């Protein structure tokens, strides 16, 4: 792919993202708002978290929330609208083709996710006594793999032949239960049994588990990483088969 075109498209997509106040709020501010609402007592050890600090448990979940918001809530609707508006069609008539938009949206989603994650961790470290991760490398790797898995899932949602409004509705139907049953917004072991059982089938759960283990114990949750990698590959393969530019 033409790098000038990819760079310029990325800059354009980033500008368009920043012009959408709802997207900026939900990706960057909403996780911090949730942190603050649950921030009372800071990082004090909690018996119900097995004596682990409250922030050390909440923050890895909120990191998963950040990656889910930017991918599942942002990308499917964006791509479906581009398809509906004929933006992708117009790009097909250029030498670079519409793939450049897909590439740019992946770059923007990843960059904004990283920015949102750093902002969240910064606030939690500075204001709520969060401990530094036991293994930053394991946290970063799990975050990266989780982002790839969720972007693939988002691409799969975008590839279903639906009008943009339906794609948006479908993304919400996937997103909202997912962030609760996965433990992204609230620790899973405090959820009802049924929610925990459903959570076992949600890829985001494995991002939460993997991030949590990497943050507190500093070890690699290989099972979780395998599920995320499998989700990434399976979704990408299915999406590539289903996706239509027009």
């Amino acid at each position, binding site marked *: 792919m033409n790098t000038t075109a990819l*760079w310029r498209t990325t800059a354009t997509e980033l500008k*368009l993202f920043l012009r*959408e106040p709802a997207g900026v709020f939900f990706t960057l501010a909403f996780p911090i708002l949730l942190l603050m609402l649950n921030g009372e007592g800071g990082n004090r050890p909690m018996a119900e978290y097995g004596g682990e600090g409250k922030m050390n448990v909440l923050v890895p979940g909120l990191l998963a929330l950040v990656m889910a918001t930017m991918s599942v809530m942002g990308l499917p609707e964006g791509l479906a*609208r581009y398809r509906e*508006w004929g933006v992708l069609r117009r790009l*097909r008539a250029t*030498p670079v083709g519409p793939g450049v938009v897909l590439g740019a949206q992946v770059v923007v989603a990843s960059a904004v996710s990283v920015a949102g994650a750093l902002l969240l961790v910064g606030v939690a470290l500075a204001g709520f006594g969060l401990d530094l991760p036991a293994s930053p490398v394991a946290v970063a790797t799990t975050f990266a793999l989780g982002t790839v898995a969720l972007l693939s899932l988002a691409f799969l949602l975008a590839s279903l032949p639906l009008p943009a409004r339906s794609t948006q509705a479908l993304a919400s139907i996937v997103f909202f239960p997912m962030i609760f049953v996965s433990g992204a917004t609230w620790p899973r072991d405090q959820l009802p049994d049924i929610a925990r059982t459903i959570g076992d089938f949600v890829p985001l759960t494995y991002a939460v588990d993997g991030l949590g283990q990497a943050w507190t114990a500093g070890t690699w949750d290989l099972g979780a990483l395998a599920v995320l990698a499998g989700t990434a590959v399976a979704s990408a393969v299915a999406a590539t088969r289903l996706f239509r530019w027009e």
Partner: protein
Amino acid sequence: MLTPDAPAIEVADLHKRYGAFVAVDGVSFTVPTGEVFGLVGSNGAGKTTTLECLLGLREPDAGTVRVFGLDPARQGAEVRLRVGAQLQAAQLPPRLRVGEALVWFASFYPHTVDVDELLARWGLTDKRSTAFGDLSGGQRQRLFLALALLHSPELVCFDELTTGLDPRARRDTWRQVESLRDEGRTVLVVTHDMEEAERLCDRVAMLDGGRVVALGRPADLVEEAGVRSLEDVFLARTGPGSTTPPASVEMEVR
């Protein structure tokens, strides 16, 4: 800039079907460089499909398509470097500004004309910071014309150029197309507007049901048929009922 040895467009016995619907059924025509050529006919006659084959957006089922001697199905990127297109049913993100759209599209091409000059030429200088969603229909169309001409293409294709424009904007757009001819560019006008075709085109191919039913200079076609306008020729040469695709495939055709 011109390639004297190859015509701008060569289409020979082109066939394209979508499931059971035959969109293009043996279309042939050649457009020498420097000509303004019209593909005319009603909706569903096969015009847009033919254009899409020329741009390499669809692969023909059978027949040959060449643009400057290149095969769009195999050398699509090379073809699209030399061809500018304004497409039907294509919009831009509503929050994208005019100037940003031009800078963005300019990154797709190795060489482009000066963006300020282009804005001035299409009367968009004072709209540079206006969002696409806030432009009028005529301004949007002028932006798409500017985008089609960013890389100074040798062949420019317009699909339903003036649909939805008021009479004044329509006349302005026609004058601008004529200025492209004066610059020596080849222009392909795809339209169901016979007045537009008669006014702009050196020659036209009239399509009906995926076939060419008339080919030649508009004035000659009018004279041969002994009628007053190209619209009369169209009404005489094309039948009702034969041109509308079944609803189930209409989406795909567009």
